[in-house]
Each structure stands twice: as C-alpha cells, then as structure tokens.
C-alpha cells in the first residue's frame, strides 16, 4: 500500500517556539501539499511543492515556511508558533493532476 507518513499524531508546543512538521511519502510522487483543517473552515492549502527544492504558496502561507530537500520528504515549519496556529495539519502527495491525493493521518498541533 502507498503511504504518506506524518511524524507526529499529536504535538503540543509553546508560543514562540520553532516547530517542524515532517511528512514522508514512499510512492515517488512529484507533488506534495500541506493543508490545515479547522472546524467550519474545511481544508485550506498552506504550501505545495512540485519538485525537489521547489515550493509554491497556497492560500494561507503567512507564518509558515516549507522545505523539500529530497523528493520523498516535505517539511512544514512554523517559524514562531502562535496560538492561532493550533489546528490539524494534513500532508498529501499526488503523482499527477489526474489523480486525487494520498493523505497522511494528520498532526493535531496545540500551541499554548
């Protein structure tokens, strides 16, 4: 089975900390995505990447950055965590435009 693995299922961080959320896929997919999911707001795209060392801003990139040094790994970075970044974060990958995504199981981040 193809897999997208997010390193943490639950995470609690303090305000102002630098936070790394890791995502690894084993399917050799070119495209990788980070979303946040909030009740009543659905899923909103933060950043995405179509190739190694390539990144594009999504709809809500403010307060986030990303890194993709290897094809299989796509990291989301919260430079200085704030309480309004408390959310569920979902990573996904896709081989082409013709298919839907394969999602990870999510990281529920709480910033206190």
């Amino acid at each position: 089975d193809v897999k997208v693995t997010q390193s943490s299922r639950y995470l609690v961080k303090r305000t102002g900390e630098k936070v790394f959320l890791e995502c690894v896929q084993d399917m050799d997919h070119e495209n990788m995505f980070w979303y946040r999911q909030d009740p009543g707001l659905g899923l909103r795209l933060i950043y995405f990447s179509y190739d190694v060392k390539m990144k594009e801003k999504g709809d809500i990139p403010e307060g986030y950055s990303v890194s993709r040094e290897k094809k299989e790994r796509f990291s989301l970075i919260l430079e200085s965590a704030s309480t309004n970044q408390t959310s569920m974060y979902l990573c996904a990958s896709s081989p082409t435009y013709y298919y839907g995504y394969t999602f990870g199981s999510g990281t529920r981040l709480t910033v206190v």
Partner: protein
Amino acid sequence: AQTVTQSQPEMSVQEAETVTLSCTYDTSESDYYLFWYKQPPSRQMILVIRQEAYKQQNATENRFSVNFQKAAKSFSLKISDSQLGDAAMYFCAYRSSPYSGGGADGLTFGKGTHLIIQP
C-alpha cells in the same frame, strides 16, 4: 479563484437507505477534476470517487455514485445501501486541469458534510 460549496453541514440517514450529499462549485474553466473524500473519526482522508469534467458519464464506485451536472456546476454524491462504516465527514474538492490554463495549484475543498448513519 475556484470555490466549492457544500450546503449541508450535517446529514442523517437510516442504515441500508440511500443518501445524497450536495456540492456546487464556481469556476470559469472548462476542464477540471472533481473529487469526493471521506474522513472518518480516525482522521485519515480517503478518496471515494473522482470525476473528470470532460467525461459525460457519471463516475461509479460500488455503492457510491455521482450526479455530475456540468452546466449547473453541481457534483452530488449518492451513497446507496448506507452502512455504519459510511459515517464520516465528506468533502467535495475541485482541481484545475493544466490543459485548461488553470493555475497549477492544489485541490480546493468544500467545508464538509457530516454524515450520520442511524442503526
């Protein structure tokens, strides 16, 4: 920018009955892809069904089928013979085709419909 609207925050259906979840979208593109995803309490998002806009025929996957009305920009999901395991959040999503000149970005999701299955 494209928008996806799911007008039913919550739906309830008796086990073994049929339920239809609504989705409408707004786009100026002629070629695109539409998806329905399921998110059970385990949080894992699972692709249920996919429709390509240039195909007239409605997609079907076992008990799941869609009613795709391109002119009306409507993409509803029908679940037949509902089962307890169908209980989940369901998200409708849109993706541009690179050949339509649309932006090369990710899926745009609706806000979801919470489906409850009554035993």
